[in-house]
C-alpha cells in the first residue's frame, strides 16, 4: 500500500473520498472497469469505521463470510484491491472541490494535496473523524494556541504546565512521553481506572507515586484564561466537589466523532446531512459525482456494509461510460472472463 504525499496536482480517473469498506470496494469495481483511483481519508489508516470504531468487533452479515472483525474485513478488502494499485492519501481531509474548465474536478486536502480527477466518489460514511471537543464554553477560542487534541510537535510542550485529559492510550502515552520535557503534568480522568496498556498505566502510577506528575480523578468541567491562553482548568468529581488546577496548556483525548465536514460545501443537494442519489447508478445531483455507502440517501436505504458493496458495482458501470466513452460496456463475470482475470492477475495467459 502506498501513502502518497504529492507535490504538484495528481492526475487520476477517480478520486474516492473515504477509505472505509464502501470506498475500498469501489476501487475493485472501478478497477474491473479500467478506472484508476486515488483515495483520501482523514484517518491515518484505511478501513473507516471498521478500523477506528470496531477493529476487534465481529461482523456477521458480510455475505459468505460468517464472521470477521472490522480489522479483518479491511485487510481482506485491501488484499482484494491490490491488483488495481490504488494510491492512498491518508491523514488528510478532503477540504474543497472545484470544477476545472475541462470538466474535471480538483479536490484539495487540508494537507495541501491536489488531485485532479474526472470522477469523484464520495464514500465518506458518517463523515470525517474529528477529535471530540469537550463541551466547555468558549473552548474554541483556545484551540490551537493552548488547547490541543493531538500532538504535532512535542517541543511546544517544553517547560509547560500541562493538563492531559482522558483515560485511554493516547492520554497515557502522551503523559509519559511529555513528562520529561514539560515543567509539570496533571492527568485528569473521570475514574481511577484506565483503558490503556497495563505497562503505560504502571509507569504513570510510578511517576505519580514519585511525585513527578499528578493524577486527578474528576471531570474536566471548565477553563479559565484570556487571549487564547488558558490559566487554569476547573474539575468536578462525582460528589460535585470542584477544584482548580493552574496550567498553561491542555491536551484533551476523548476519542473521535464523525462530522460531515467540508463535503457539506461541495454544492451537492443534501437530505439531513446525507447525499441523495438515484438508485440506478448512485450518481448525485451533480453528474460525475457519485455517493456510495452510509453517506448516501435513497428511499429504502439501509446502512449496511453490503449495501455499499452493491452500490459500488452499479456506480462503476456508470463511471465506465464517463471514463471510456468510446468503448462499449461489457457485462462480465470474474469467474469466466479471461479479460477480468487478466486485470486481477489470476490468469497469466489472459490479455
Amino acid at each position, binding site marked *: 500500500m502506498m501513502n502518497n504525499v504529492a507535490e504538484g496536482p495528481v492526475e487520476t480517473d477517480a478520486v474516492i473520498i473515504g477509505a472505509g469498506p464502501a470506498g475500498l470496494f469501489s476501487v475493485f469495481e472501478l478497477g474491473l472497469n479500467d478506472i484508476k483511483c486515488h483515495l483520501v481519508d482523514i484517518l491515518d489508516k484505511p478501513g473507516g*469505521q471498521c478500523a477506528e*470504531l*470496531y477493529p476487534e*468487533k465481529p461482523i456477521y452479515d458480510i455475505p459468505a463470510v460468517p464472521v470477521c472483525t472490522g480489522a479483518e474485513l479491511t485487510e481482506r478488502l485491501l488484499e482484494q484491491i491490490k491488483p488495481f494499485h490504488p494510491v492512498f492519501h491518508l491523514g488528510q481531509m478532503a477540504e474543497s472541490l472545484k470544477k476545472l474548465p475541462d470538466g474535471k474536478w480538483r479536490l484539495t486536502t487540508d494537507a495541501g494535496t491536489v488531485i485532479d480527477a474526472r470522477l469523484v466518489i464520495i464514500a465518506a460514511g*458518517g463523515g470525517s473523524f474529528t477529535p*471530540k471537543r*469537550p*463541551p466547555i464554553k468558549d473552548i474554541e477560542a483556545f484551540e490551537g494556541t493552548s488547547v490541543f487534541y493531538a500532538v504535532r510537535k512535542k517541543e511546544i510542550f517544553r517547560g509547560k504546565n500541562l493538563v492531559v485529559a*482522558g*483515560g*485511554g492510550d493516547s492520554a497515557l502515552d502522551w503523559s509519559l512521553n511529555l513528562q520529561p520535557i514539560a515543567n509539570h503534568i496533571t492527568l485528569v*480522568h*473521570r*475514574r481511577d*481506572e484506565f*483503558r490503556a496498556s497495563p505497562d503505560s498505566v504502571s509507569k504513570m502510577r510510578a511517576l505519580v507515586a514519585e511525585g513527578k506528575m499528578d493524577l486527578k480523578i474528576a*471531570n*474536566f468541567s471548565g477553563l479559565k484564561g484570556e487571549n487564547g491562553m488558558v490559566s487554569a482548568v476547573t474539575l468536578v468529581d*462525582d460528589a460535585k466537589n470542584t477544584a482548580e488546577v493552574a496550567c498553561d496548556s491542555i491536551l484533551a483525548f*476523548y*476519542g473521535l*466523532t*464523525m462530522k460531515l465536514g467540508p463535503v457539506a460545501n461541495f454544492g451537492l443537494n443534501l437530505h439531513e446531512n446525507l447525499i441523495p442519489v438515484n438508485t440506478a447508478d448512485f450518481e448525485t445531483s451533480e453528474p460525475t459525482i457519485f455517493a456510495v455507502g452510509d453517506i448516501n440517501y435513497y428511499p429504502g436505504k439501509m*446502512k449496511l456494509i453490503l449495501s455499499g458493496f452493491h452500490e459500488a458495482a452499479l456506480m462503476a458501470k456508470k463511471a465506465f461510460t464517463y471514463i471510456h466513452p468510446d468503448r462499449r460496456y461489457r457485462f462480465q463475470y470474474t469467474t469466466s472472463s479471461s479479460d477480468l482475470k487478466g486485470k486481477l492477475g489470476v490468469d497469466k495467459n489472459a490479455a
Partner: protein
Amino acid sequence: MKIYLTDMQGQEHELEATEEWTLMEIIREGGIPILAQCGGSCACATCHVYIDPAWKSKLPDPNEEEIGMLDGTFDVTPDSRLACQIVFTKDLDGLKVKLAPGSV
C-alpha cells in the same frame, strides 16, 4: 409499555417501548434524534443518557466495555449509561431517562 424521555430542551416525550429492544432503538424509533453513530455496538458513546435515579436499581450494572466507552464522552455522572446497552424488559415499563449532551 412506555418510557419517558426528556430531550435536551427539557421536554418530556412518552415513547412506545418494545421488549428486547435497546433503549437507543426505542428512542430512535420514537422519532427523537439520537446520534448513536456506531449503530449500537458500544463503540462510540454518542447515545449517552442519564437514568432517573429512582430507576437505576432496576437496571443490570454496566459491563466493563460500557464503563470504558463512557470515558470517551463528557458530563458523565453516576446516572450515566449508554442507551444502546440497555435492553428493555417489562420491569422497565415507565422508565424515565434523559438525553445527555453529546448524544444529539
